C-alpha cells in the first residue's frame, strides 16, 4: 500500500485535493440544480443526495491513503504543500499533517458520508443548498486541521462557521434562529480576539523576518515574546478555542445548537467541530505560548474549568428532559476530559486526550444519529415520550445500548481507553483534579443508563410508540462502521495510538522544555 501510494506521489497532492474536491462537488451540485430546475422537486431531491453522497464517499476514499502514507514518527510535516497566496502580506497557502491532524482529518472525511446518510430522508427543503453547505463545511474543517499558516488557519476557522450557521438556521428545529445566532456570535467573539492575536504574532514575525510572515513554523521557532504579552496572546487564542471546545462556562451555545440543528448538523458539530477547539489548544495555544500555558495560575485555572466541566456537564446532563440536550451536556463532560488530558501534559494523558477526541466523535456522533432516527419516526426528542420501545425496535435498542456503553466508557469499548489514559496520565501531574474527574464514571453511568431505561426499557406505555418501525438497511449500514470503530478501538487501540504517539510525545517534551526556558519568577511577575 505504501509503495503504491508513493508511486503515485500521493503525499504531494492529497491535501490540496482533499480541500478542492468538496469545492468541485459544490460546483457539481450547483450545476445539477441549474440543469434540473424544471424537474419535479422529489426527483431533484433524490438525485442530489446521491450526487452529494458520491462526493463525500470519494473524499473519504481519497483520504484513506493517509493512514498508510503518513509516517507518524517523522519529525517534519507530512504531505506538506507550500504555495504563495497573498504575497504582499506574506500569507502563504501552507498545509501539512502530523499524526494528530491526520487522525482528525480521517475522522472528518469518514464521518461526513455517515452524516449525509443520516439525513438521507429528513432534509427535503432546499436540498441543493444543504449539501453545498455540507461540502463547504468540509473544506473549512479540513482546512483548520491542515493549515500551517496562521492567516490560512483563521480563514478556514471562519469559513466553517458560515455553513454551520446556515445549516442550523435554515434546516433546524423550532428555535433555530436563536440557536444559530447564539452559535455564531459566541464563536465569533472568541475568534475575533484570536484574529487580533494572529495579527500581532504576524507583525512580530514580520519584524524578525524583515518581511511579512505568518508561517506557523517560523513563528514557533523565531518569535520570542515577553511574558505579559505571551499571557495576553495565549488568552486570546485560548478564549477562541475554549468557546469551541466548549469549556465551562462558555458551553451554553452547545445545547441550543445541538438541539436545533438537523441530524447531520448535530453529528458534525459533536464529532468534528468541537475537536477544532481541542486541536487548537494542541496545535497553537500550547506550543506557541508554552510559558503562558504552563504558568501555574493559568494552568490551574484551565484544569479547574475542565474538571468543573466534567462533573458539571455530567450532573446537568442527568436532569435533561430532552435527549439531544442530554447528549450535548455529556459532550461538555467528555471534552472536559480532553482538556484535562491536554493540560496535564504527560504523554499518556495527551494520548488519552487525543483518543477521547476521536472516541467522542464516534460515539457521540452515533448517539446523535440514533436520536435523529428516532426523531424522524416520532417527531419528539423528549425522553418521557418514549419508554419500552426495545420490544418494538430491537435493532435500534441494541445499537443505542452499545453506543451508550461506549459513551459511559465501559471497558471493551473505545470510551474506556481514552478516559483511562487521560486519568492515568493526568494523575501524575494533577492528582486532585484527576480524582475528582474520575467521579464522572459514576455520573456518566447514571445519566446515560437512566435515560436509556426511560427510552427503551420500562413498560411500553404509549400506544403511539407501538408502531415505530425498526431501523432500515441504510440506517443499520451507516451505524455498523461506527460500531466496528467502537469495538475495534476498545479492544485493539494500538494502531490508533501509534499514529499519534510521536506527535504527542514531541508536543509534551517541547512544551515542557520551552515553559522552563522562561523563569517562573518572570512569568509570576507578569501577572
Amino acid at each position, binding site marked *: 500500500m505504501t509503495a503504491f501510494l508513493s508511486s503515485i506521489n500521493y503525499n504531494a497532492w492529497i491535501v490540496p485535493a482533499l480541500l478542492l474536491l468538496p469545492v468541485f462537488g459544490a460546483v457539481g451540485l450547483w450545476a445539477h440544480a441549474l440543469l434540473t430546475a424544471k424537474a419535479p422537486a422529489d426527483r431533484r431531491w433524490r438525485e442530489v443526495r446521491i450526487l452529494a453522497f458520491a462526493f463525500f464517499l470519494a473524499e473519504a476514499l481519497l483520504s484513506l491513503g493517509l493512514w498508510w502514507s503518513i509516517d507518524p514518527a517523522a519529525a517534519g510535516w507530512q504531505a506538506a504543500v507550500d504555495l504563495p497566496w497573498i504575497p504582499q502580506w506574506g500569507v502563504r497557502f501552507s498545509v501539512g499533517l502530523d499524526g494528530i491532524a491526520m487522525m482528525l482529518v480521517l475522522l472528518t472525511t469518514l464521518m461526513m458520508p455517515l452524516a449525509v446518510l443520516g439525513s438521507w430522508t429528513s432534509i427535503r427543503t432546499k436540498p441543493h443548498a444543504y449539501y453545498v453547505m455540507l461540502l463547504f463545511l468540509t473544506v473549512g474543517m479540513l482546512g483548520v486541521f491542515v493549515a500551517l499558516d496562521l492567516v490560512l488557519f483563521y480563514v478556514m476557522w471562519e469559513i466553517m462557521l458560515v455553513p454551520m450557521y446556515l445549516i442550523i438556521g435554515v434546516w433546524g428545529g423550532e428555535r433555530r434562529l436563536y440557536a444559530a445566532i447564539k452559535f455564531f456570535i459566541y464563536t465569533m467573539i472568541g475568534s475575533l480576539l484570536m484574529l487580533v492575536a494572529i495579527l500581532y504574532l504576524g507583525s512580530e514575525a514580520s519584524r524578525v523576518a524583515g518581511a511579512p510572515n505568518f508561517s506557523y513554523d517560523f513563528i514557533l521557532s523565531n518569535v520570542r515574546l515577553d511574558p505579559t504579552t505571551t499571557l495576553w496572546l495565549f488568552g486570546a487564542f485560548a478564549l477562541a478555542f475554549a468557546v469551541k471546545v466548549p469549556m465551562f462556562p462558555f458551553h451554553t451555545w452547545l445545547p441550543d445548537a445541538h438541539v436545533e440543528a438537523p441530524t447531520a448538523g448535530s453529528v458534525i458539530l459533536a464529532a468534528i467541530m468541537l475537536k477544532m477547539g481541542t486541536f487548537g489548544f494542541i496545535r497553537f495555544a500550547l506550543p506557541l505560548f508554552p510559558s503562558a500555558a504552563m504558568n501555574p495560575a493559568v494552568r490551574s485555572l484551565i484544569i479547574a474549568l475542565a474538571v468543573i466541566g466534567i462533573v458539571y456537564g455530567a450532573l446537568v446532563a442527568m436532569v435533561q428532559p430532552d435527549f439531544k440536550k442530554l447528549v450535548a451536556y455529556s459532550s461538555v463532560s467528555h471534552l472536559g476530559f480532553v482538556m484535562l488530558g491536554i493540560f496535564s501534559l504527560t504523554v499518556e494523558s495527551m494520548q488519552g486526550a487525543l483518543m477521547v477526541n476521536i472516541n467522542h466523535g464516534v460515539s457521540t456522533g452515533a448517539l446523535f444519529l440514533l436520536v435523529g432516527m428516532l426523531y424522524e419516526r416520532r417527531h419528539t426528542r423528549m425522553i418521557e415520550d418514549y419508554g419500552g420501545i426495545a420490544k418494538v425496535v430491537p435493532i435500534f435498542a441494541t445499537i443505542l445500548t452499545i453506543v451508550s456503553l461506549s459513551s459511559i466508557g465501559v471497558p471493551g469499548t473505545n470510551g474506556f481507553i481514552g478516559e483511562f489514559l487521560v486519568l492515568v496520565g493526568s494523575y501524575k501531574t494533577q492528582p486532585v483534579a484527576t480524582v475528582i474527574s474520575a467521579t464522572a464514571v459514576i455520573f456518566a453511568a447514571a445519566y446515560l443508563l437512566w435515560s436509556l*431505561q426511560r427510552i427503551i426499557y420500562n413498560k411500553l406505555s404509549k400506544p403511539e410508540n407501538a408502531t415505530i418501525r425498526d431501523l432500515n438497511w441504510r440506517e443499520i449500514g451507516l451505524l455498523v462502521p461506527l460500531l466496528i470503530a467502537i469495538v475495534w478501538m476498545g479492544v485493539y487501540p494500538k494502531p490508533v495510538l501509534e499514529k499519534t504517539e510521536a506527535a504527542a510525545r514531541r508536543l509534551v517534551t517541547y512544551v515542557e522544555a520551552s515553559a522552563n526556558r522562561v523563569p517562573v519568577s518572570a512569568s509570576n511577575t507578569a501577572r
Partner: protein
Amino acid sequence: MNPAMIPEGAHPLAATVARLVWLLPLLPLLGFLINGTLAMLGVAKIGPADPSANGGHGHGEVPGHADEHAHDDHGHPPRHKFAKIVSLVGPGVLVAAFALAVAIFAAMRGVEMEHPYLLTLFSWMPVGDLKLDATILLDPLSMTMVMVVTGVGMLIHVFSVGYMQDDPGYPRYFAYLNLFVFFMLLLVLGGSYPLLFVGWEGVGLCSYLLIGFWFSEKANADAGKKAFIMNRIGDFGFLVAMLLMFANFGTLDILGVAEQAAELPMGGVIATTIALFLFLGCTGKSAQIPLYTWLPDAMAGPTPVSALIHAATMVTAGVYLVARASGIFSMAPVAQLTVALVGAATAFFAATIGLKQWDIKKVLAYSTVSQLGYMFVAVGVGAYVAGIFHLVTHAFFKALLFLGSGSVIYVLHAAYHKTHNHDDAQDMRNMGGLRQYMPITFSLMWIATLAIAGIPLFSGFFSKDEILTSVFARISHSTLADASLLGMPGGTVLMIVYGLAVASALMTAIYMARMMLYTFHGPNRTGEGERPHLKEAPWVMTGPLVVLGALTAFGGWLNVPALLGAIGPVGGLEHFLEPVVGEAALRTTLGVAPHLPHSTELMLVGAAIFIAVAGIAFAVWRLKPAALVPRKDAPESTGIDRVLENKYFVDEGYAAAFVNPTVNASRTVLWKGFDAGIIDGLFVNGSALLARAFGWMGSQLQTGQVGTYAWVLLIGVITLLGAFTFR
C-alpha cells in the same frame, strides 16, 4: 516473581495444553456472538427505507413480539424458533470451556507452579511509560477461579435450558450469560489490573443486562440500573487505585505491582491508600457496606442469573481481587483491618435483615451478602486461602440454594400459570409443605442449608471454621494486632470481628432453617387449584442440582484442616494456592504460620458446631410454619419486624441523602439556576439584551423628522468643533 526474568515459553506450562488458555474466554465469547446473532435474527424486522413515511402515527396495533414476557403470558407461548441451536450452543461452549479448564488444571498439577504462567496475546495500550499488554496470567489462584466459573457456570447454563425454555428472549438470555462468562474469565485471567478491570466492569455490564432482562417491568430495569451505578461507585475506587499504582509503581501489571509493593514500607500511606481504594471497588462489586443495597434488588433477574452472577461468581470477584492484590493488602494492616471489620459488619447486618425477609430469593440474597462478608473477614485478616476456600464452597452451596429456589419458583409459577393466579411465586408465605411434592429439591436444599449453617462434614463447615479460626489466631502475634484502626488497637478490632462473625453464624443457621421450614415444611399454603400442579421440576433442572448437592456435601475435602487430618489429605487448597498468596499471608502473621494450641482449636470448632446446631434448633423450636397465612392475608408487621423487613430503610436513606439531593440540585441549582439562569440568562442573553436596549435607544432617535436629524448633526458638529477649539 519478576515476569521479565522468565522468558515466555520457558515456563513448564508452555509445553502443555495450558498454552491454549486464551481459548477459555474465547469460547464463551463465541457463544455470545452466535446467540446474540440469533437473538437479533429472531426479533429483527427491518424498517422501511423511508422511516418518516409511515409508522409513528398509527395507534393501537401492537406487534406480536411486544407482548409481555412469558411469565405474565396466558397462552402457552411457542418455543423460540432458534431454541434448539441456542440450547446447544449456550451450554455447549461452557462444557467445552470446562473441559479445557480441567485439562489445564491437570497439566498444572503435573508441573511445579512456582511462577505464574504468562501468555501475552497482543500489545494493548502502549502509551508513553505505560506498556500495557493483553496478557493472560495463569496461576493456581486464577485456575481455582476458572474451575469455579466454568464448572458452576456450566451447571447453571444447563439448568437455564429448563428454566428459561419458554421465554421469548431465550437466545438473548444465553447471549448475555455467555458474555458474562467471557468477562468473568477475563477478570480472573487478566494479567494486569486494567485487563482485570475490563472483566470487572464487563461482568457488571452483564449483570446489568441480566437483572433488567425482563425490562418491561420498571422495577427490574430500576434494579439493573441501580446495580450498575452502585458498581460504578466501586469502580471509581478501583480506578483511583490503579491511578495510584501507576503513579507510584510505574506499572499496572499484577506481578509488577506485587513486586514493587513488597518494597514499600509496612503500613505506609501509599499501600494503605491503594488498598483502601481497591477495597472500595470490592464493596461495590461484592455488595459490602455501604454499597450492598443493589444485590437484594438484583434478584429481579432470572433465578439462574442470581445463582451464577449474584451468588457464585461475580460478587466474589471482590474477594478474588483482595487475594490477587494480597501483596498490597499485606503491606497495609490498617486497610486489612478495615476490610475485616467491614466484612464482619456486613455479615452481621445482612444476617439480621435476612431473618425477616419473606421473599425466598431475598433471604438468599441477604445470605449471600452475609457470606461475602465472611469471605472479606478471611481475606481481610490475611487468611487468603480461607477466603478463597469459602468462596469455592459458597459457590457450591449458594448456587445450589438459588437453583433449588429457582426450581420451587418455577414449579409454583407454572402452577399459578395454569390456574391464572397472579400471586407472588417467590413469597414463602405462599409456599409451605413442598417437601412432599418436590422431594429431590427438598433434600438437596437441606444439604445446602446444613452446609451454610456449618454442620460438620458439609463443605461450609470446613471453610467457615477455617475463617473463624484464622481470625482468632491473628488476634495476637500479627501485623494486624500491632496496627490500630481509628485509635482502636488491632487486637480489639479483631475480637469485634470475631464476635460479629460468630453472631452472624448463629443468625445464618436461624434464617436458613426458617427458610427451609417455611418453604418445605408445615402445611401447604398454595391454593387448592394449584396443588395438583405441584411436582418436581424437569431433569434438565434437577440434574445440575444433584451435581451441586454432591459438591456441597463433599467440597470440604478440598482443604481439610489439620485437626481433622484423619478424614483426608490436609490442606489441599492451601498447598495449591501457596505460591500465589503464601508470601503475603506469612507477612501478616509475621513470618510464621499461625498456630493455635490443639485445645483452643478444638474449643473453637466445638463452639462453632454448637452455634450451628443451636441456631437450627432455635428455628425449629420457635418457628411455627403452621401459623403462617398466605401473603394476601398476612397482617402488616410492626416494630423491629417492620424495620428488618424494610432492610433498615437504607435504600430510602440513600435516596434521601444522596440521590434526590443530587438530582434536585442538578436540576434546580445547576441547570435551571446556573446554566439557564446565570450563564445563559444573565451573561449570554443579558449581553444580547443590553445590545438590544442600546439599539432601542438609538432607534428612538430615528424619528424620521429631518429637523431632528439636523439638530443631532449640529450638536455633533458643535461638539467636534468644541473639541478642536478647547483642546
